[in-house]
């Protein structure tokens, strides 16, 4: 059988790895500010992403206040509502989730999990963070620019995005947004190349690709996808900047705005949509694949059971990653593109459901006959499965072209994508933070606070987004600051909206508890020790906790087995770390 067959422990020739040349910081500034250590960069990324994420959270409160209690708050008028949804959506998807999963988790975990000393290009890695920070600052600046931020929706569809009927369209808003996105992509590319090269080139002895933890597989595949997808957004952003500033007409046909003939002509608004979604759909999986990977590791560790069907899981990640480049136009079923595309894209989209379902089954089968510890990370994992399953299933509605026709651009879509790419990945982020916090800080997060945070967030988020589907089914469109009196929406929908808004406020407040816990546990948390969860992967086997500069002692750890040796029959303990030599893992039945 091939070497990946779990349990097969191959002795590894004990040769000495060349001492990797590391950059050694000389001062406090180069150690903690302009740091080239991936761990510090990961923390910088995470903190920045959470800070800007808080802005998006506050915006969601404001939107929910407006939707739940229309025309009660005089400071929320239609232009500002559109600015809120745009900034909320863009921040959540790009500046929070992408940055946190790849820049945050990726930087911290990749070198540790593959047994490297650092990223391969530490200097570019440092630049990556600072350019990301600049992108965030430019984005924030647009709140203070004359006319405020853009209100074009996070999809930024032209012609509307650069015309005067949209907030920020003829002002600074759209320019700053596009510049910020371009910066983000430049910064991401520097980090992304690092993650890919590090995974491919800097793995420790014995760490074959098929022994890597699924977290690494998820982040790696997502990074490769992002490197392929972001350029489409980049060129779209640059072309739109040209249209806006230089008067080109890439996306602008001849049009009459408010009775005035504009000097544009010959461009195609649909072209932008293709560019946007060629990025935008893979983006969903850029966020989802790291979540898949992390969840797999959390579930296996906390259920004390090997991940079920590791190879299938790897192939599902890679397969989903590849397929997700040929489904983008399912966001454009009612865009007016050629109707025959509907057949193709509906088919590819529903095919993706199969590998995705396999992942869900394998997580469940990992729970089955496990030894489940209902720790806070495990609870978030369960919540991820519920919300991801729910959102994935409603994806089968929207992917099935003709079913999408009545539902597209309604609150059904809003509910769907929040479930699948809002709530579900956020659950994983929380689970991941509770899980790895002890490694990062040396202390456990407070359990009681964690559980309160979990229950409010999970049940609250479900209560917000599950009923919202039915508003969409009624026909309530998205991106409406109020639906107003209509012939088809019953008054009871108002009550539902108010309910959703109240729950949203509560869920938002619960996040403050999480932030408090983060800070509180830094000093007051229980000492964690090197491996509080009895996990197998390398990051828990570092000589120091938190890991020091260079991660490992004299040598990088040799790897003898896969990452999921939990509950191996005959072994002394219910887990065998990846770097434990076969001799000491007495009689662990590795037959090969």
């Amino acid at each position, binding site marked *: 059988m091939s070497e990946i067959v779990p349990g097969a422990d191959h002795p590894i020739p004990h040769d000495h790895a060349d001492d990797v040349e590391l950059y050694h910081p000389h001062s406090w500034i180069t150690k903690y500010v302009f740091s080239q250590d991936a761990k510090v960069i990961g923390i910088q990324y995470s903190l920045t992403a959470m800070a800007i994420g808080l802005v998006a959270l506050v915006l969601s409160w404001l939107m929910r206040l407006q939707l739940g209690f229309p025309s009660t708050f005089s400071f929320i008028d239609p232009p500002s509502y559109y600015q809120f949804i745009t900034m909320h959506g863009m921040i959540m998807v790009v500046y929070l989730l992408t940055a946190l999963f790849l820049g945050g988790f990726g930087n911290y975990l990749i070198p540790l999990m593959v047994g490297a000393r650092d990223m391969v290009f530490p200097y570019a890695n440092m630049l990556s963070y600072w350019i990301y920070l600049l992108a965030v600052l430019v984005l924030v600046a647009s709140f203070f620019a004359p006319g405020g931020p853009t209100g074009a929706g996070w999809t930024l569809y032209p012609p509307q995005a650069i015309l005067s009927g949209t907030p920020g369209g003829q002002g600074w808003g759209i320019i700053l947004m596009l510049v910020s996105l371009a910066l983000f992509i430049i910064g991401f590319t520097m980090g992304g190349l690092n993650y890919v090269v590090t995974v491919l080139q800097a793995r420790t002895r014995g760490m074959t690709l098929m022994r890597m933890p699924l977290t690494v597989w998820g982040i790696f595949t997502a990074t490769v996808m992002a490197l392929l997808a972001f350029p489409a957004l980049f060129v779209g952003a640059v072309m739109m900047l040209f249209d806006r500033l230089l008067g080109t007409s890439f996306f602008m046909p001849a049009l009459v705005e408010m009775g005035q003939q504009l000097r544009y002509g010959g461009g195609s608004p649909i072209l932008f949509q293709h560019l946007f979604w060629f990025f935008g759909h893979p983006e969903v999986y850029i966020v989802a694949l790291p979540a898949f990977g992390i969840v797999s590791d959390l579930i296996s560790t906390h*259920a004390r059971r090997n991940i079920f069907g590791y190879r299938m899981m790897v192939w599902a990640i890679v397969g989903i990653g590849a397929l997700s480049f040929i489904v983008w136009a399912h966001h454009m079923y009612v865009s007016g593109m050629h109707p025959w595309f509907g057949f193709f894209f509906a088919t590819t989209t529903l095919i993706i459901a199969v590998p995705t379902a396999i992942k869900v089954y394998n997580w469940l089968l990992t729970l089955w006959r496990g030894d*489940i510890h209902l720790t806070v990370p495990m609870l978030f994992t369960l919540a991820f499965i519920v919300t991801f399953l729910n959102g994935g299933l409603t994806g089968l509605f929207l992917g099935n072209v003709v079913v999408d026709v009545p539902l597209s651009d309604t609150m059904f879509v809003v509910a769907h994508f929040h479930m699948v790419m809002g709530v579900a990945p956020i659950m994983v982020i929380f689970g991941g933070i509770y899980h790895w916090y002890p490694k990062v800080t040396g202390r456990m997060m407070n359990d009681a606070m964690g559980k309160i945070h979990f229950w409010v967030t999970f049940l609250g988020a479900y209560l917000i987004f599950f009923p919202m589907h*039915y508003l969409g089914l009624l026909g309530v*469109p998205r991106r409406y600051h109020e639906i107003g009196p209509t012939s088809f929406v019953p008054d009871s929908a108002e009550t*539902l909206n108010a309910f959703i808004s109240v729950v949203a406020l509560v869920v938002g407040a619960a996040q403050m508890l999480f932030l408090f816990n983060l800070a509180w546990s830094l000093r007051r948390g229980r000492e964690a020790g090197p491996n509080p969860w009895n996990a197998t992967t390398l990051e828990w086997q570092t000589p120091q906790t938190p890991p020091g500069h260079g991660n490992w002692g004299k040598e990088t750890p040799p790897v003898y087995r896969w990452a999921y040796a*939990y509950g191996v029959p005959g072994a002394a303990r219910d887990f065998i770390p990846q770097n434990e030599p076969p001799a000491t893992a007495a009689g662990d039945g590795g037959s090969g």
Partner: protein
Amino acid sequence: MAVALILVLVAVGSVAFHLWSPWWSTPIASNWGYIDDTINLTFWITGFVFVVILLFMAYCVLRFRTRPGNRAHYEPENKRLEWWLTGITAIGVAAMLAPGLVVWNQFITVPRDATEIEVVGQQWRWSYRLPGQDGRLGRSDVRHVSAENPLGVDPTDPQGQDDIILDGEDLRLPIDRPVRVLLRGIDVLHNFYVPEFRAKMDMIPGSITYFWFTPTRTGTFEALCAELCGVGHAAMRGRVVVQTQAEYQAWLVGQRTFAELGAAARRAQASAPPPERDRYEEASR
């Protein structure tokens, strides 16, 4: 125990909400009952999967919760099980996709006898154009748009002369007659959406898009814009009145054609056509 119970409650609660909450699709008023059927089928299949998986999860949490001395069962793979599950999933997916594609084919195949009408979207209102006596719409182009020709109908096209222009009025349609709705935007994207008709499609400046349907119920229906088009997006409402054949014909004879409107407008403002200003020229001046 509590966790398993809550998982069961989530499953049961979701189904109960689905069955008994007062919020559901608005009653249909077009021939697209097939779309509703496909939605319902999808609800059944996905709902079943959702409940089964949640219950299985609850069972696992209850049954395999850690106990002293317990160890997980070590079983890295089970190829047979994995292939079975893959196969069953593929069948379930195909069971939704196949009817979906069949109905999509109907959705994009316009019947021969469908009447062509036009809906024009601009910030932030709807206008409509109906073919006149000749049953055909004349050519149009945004370059012809002006105060007296708000829809940009080509004044040189004879087929356009008898077109009926409804600007600031409701759209009227006869019941049980298939219509092919041509969609035209003259500034930004819009989307003409009547929830009761189920069909919708974006309008794209520079192109003409379409959908078709047959109204099957008389009454007045609300049209909304379903593609973000600027600050007035939510206020961009219209009305569609579906009438019996007789009522519709009676209304139709009273309507004025493009030629009549144009002549009236030309008489009214014989001089001073509004200047076509160019924003960029103006800005650079």
